[in-house]
C-alpha cells in the first residue's frame, strides 16, 4: 500500500472517530443536564415575606429555595457593635454597610459556610450566631469570627417591595 493511500485511510478513520465522539458527547449532555434544577424549580426562585410583625431584637426564619433565610431586625447596640469592628480583625473582611443596606434589617442565608448546618441565633462569643456542628462563631452582622467556617454567611439578593414586605431572590 502506498503512503498516500495509508494517509487517506487514516483520515477516514480519524474523521469517523471524531464525528462519533461528537455524537457521544451530545448524547451524554442531556443525561447530565437532567439533574440540574428543572424549570419548575427555577420558577420558584423568589419569595415575598411580610415583616411588619418583627420587632427590634427579633429574628424570623423563612424558607427560600429550600434553605432558611434569617431576617433579623437588629437593635441599635447590635448595629453599633457590628460597625465598630475593624476590618483587620475579620477573616473575611466585609463592611456592615455592605451586608445590611438598611442597617436595621439583616437578611442573610442561614447556612453555615463550613458544611451547611443552620447556626443558632443569639449564641456564641460575638452575640451573633453559633454553629453547633463544628463551632463557628458569627457576629451581629453574620460575619465569621472564630471557628472553621471560611466565609461570612451569604447575603441573598433581596429588596423591600414596600416598608412591610421583603422580596428575596
Amino acid at each position: 500500500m502506498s503512503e498516500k493511500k495509508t494517509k487517506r485511510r487514516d483520515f477516514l478513520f480519524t474523521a469517523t472517530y471524531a464525528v462519533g465522539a461528537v455524537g457521544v458527547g451530545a448524547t451524554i449532555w442531556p443525561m447530565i443536564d437532567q439533574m440540574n434544577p428543572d424549570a419548575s424549580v427555577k420558577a420558584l426562585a423568589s419569595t415575598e415575606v411580610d415583616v411588619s410583625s418583627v420587632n427590634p431584637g427579633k429574628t424570623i426564619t423563612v424558607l427560600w429555595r429550600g434553605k432558611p433565610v434569617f431576617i433579623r431586625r437588629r437593635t441599635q447596640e447590635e448595629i453599633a457593635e457590628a460597625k465598630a469592628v475593624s476590618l483587620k480583625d475579620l477573616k473575611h473582611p466585609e463592611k456592615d454597610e455592605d451586608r445590611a443596606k438598611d442597617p436595621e434589617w439583616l437578611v442573610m442565608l442561614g447556612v453555615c459556610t463550613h458544611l451547611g448546618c443552620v447556626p443558632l441565633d443569639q449564641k456564641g462569643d460575638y452575640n451573633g450566631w453559633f454553629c453547633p456542628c463544628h463551632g463557628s462563631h458569627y457576629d451581629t452582622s453574620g460575619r465569621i469570627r472564630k471557628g472553621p467556617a471560611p466565609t461570612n454567611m451569604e447575603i441573598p439578593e433581596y429588596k423591600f417591595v414596600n416598608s412591610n414586605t421583603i422580596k428575596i431572590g
Partner: protein
Amino acid sequence: MSDHEYTPKSKFGKWFNDRLPLLTLASHLTDYPTPKNLNYWWTFGGILTFCLLTQIITGLVLAMHYIAHADMAFDSVEHIMRDVNYGWLIRYIHANGASMFFLAVYIHIFRSLFYGSYKSPREVIWIIGIIIYLLMMAAAFLGYVLPWGQMSFWGATVITNLFSAIPLVGEGIVTWLWGGYSVDNPTLTRFFTLHYLIPFLILGLVVLHIWALHVPGNNNPVGIDIQKPSKDTVPFHPYIVIKDGFALLMFMIVFAFFVFYTPNILGHADNYIEANPLVTPAHIVPEWYLLPFYAILRSVPDKLLGVIAMLSAILILAALPWLDTSKIRSAVFRPLYRQFYWILVADVLILGYVGAMPAEGLYLLIARVATAYYFIHFLVILPILGFKEKTLPVPLSITEPVLGGSPNLAGARIKNKENL
C-alpha cells in the same frame, strides 16, 4: 472460554492479569473468531445490546424524577415531560426504546428460526434467549403500568386477572399480586420495584447468552460448522464491530425518527388520561409487540385454557431444538421448510393484526385459525418435515460459497434470493 492463550505485554498488565484475567477476557472478545459470511440479520445481537443499555440508562434517569405513587405518578410523568431538562427526550427514548427493543428482538428470533441457530450445539443459548424474551415482556408490561394512565391501569387489571384462571388459588394469587382488592397504590409501587429489577436480570442473562455463544461460536447463513478458523473466520474486532456499528446506526435513524417525529404513534391515546377505576376505555389493546399473544389468548373461549394457550405459545419455543428434527440447520438448504417459515411469519403478523381488532365475527375466526396454525407449525409440521424433506446439498466449508466455487450451491443461492 476456549483455548485462548494471551500474555499481556506490560509488567503491570501481567501482574494484574494473573490475579484477575480481565485482559484475557478483553483479548478473547476482540479476537473472537466470527464466521466471515454473516449477513446483516446477524447484526441484531449488537443492536439488542444497545437497546438494553439505552433502556437501562434512560430508565435510571427517569427513576430520578418519577414518583411511584398512585396520586402522583401521572403528575410526575407530566413533570418530566414539561419541566425536567430534556425530560421529554429521555422519556420518549425510553417509551419508543421499548418498541425498538421488541422490533429488534423479533428480527433476532426470526433470524434464528430461519438459519436454525437454535439447533445443536446451541440449545442453551436459545433457551437463555427465550428466558430473556419472557423477562422483556414482563419488564415491558410492568413499565407500561408506571405512567398510571387509563391503559396502564386497565392493562394491569386485565393481565393480573389472568392469574385468576388458576383453579382454587387463582383469586388469592391475584389479591396477593395487587396487595389489595384492586389494582392500586401497593400494586404500582411493587410494579415499579420489579420494573427496576428486571433489566439487571436481563443484563446478567445476556452475559450468559454471549458466554454460551462463545463456546460453540456463531452459527452462520449456510449453517455449517467452521472447518478452518484461519480461512472461514475474521476476528470480531474490527471486522464485526464496524459492521455491527454500521447496522446500529441505520437502526438509530429509524429510532430517531420515531422519537423526534412520531413519539406517540406506538402508544395509545387513552394512556394520556389519568387512571380511573370507575371507567374502562372502549378498547383495551396491549402494546403492538404483545398483540400476537393477546390474539391467542382471546381466540380460546375458555378462561383457563386461553391463558394456557398463550403461555404455551411462548414456552413451545423452548422445545424447538427438539421439535425440529432436521439435520440441516440453515433454511437456505431446506426448500420446504423455507415455505413454511414464511407462512409462519405471515401467521404471526396476522395474529398481531387480529389482536388489535375487536374479538368478534370474522376477526375471531381468523384468530382461531391462525392460533391453530401456530401450534401446528411447531408440533406437527416441524417434526415431520425433518424426516420427509429433501434438502439441497450443503457446501463443504463457509469459504466455498463465498468464493462461488461450489457448483451444487449456485442453484441454492438463486433460489434463496427469490425467497428472501
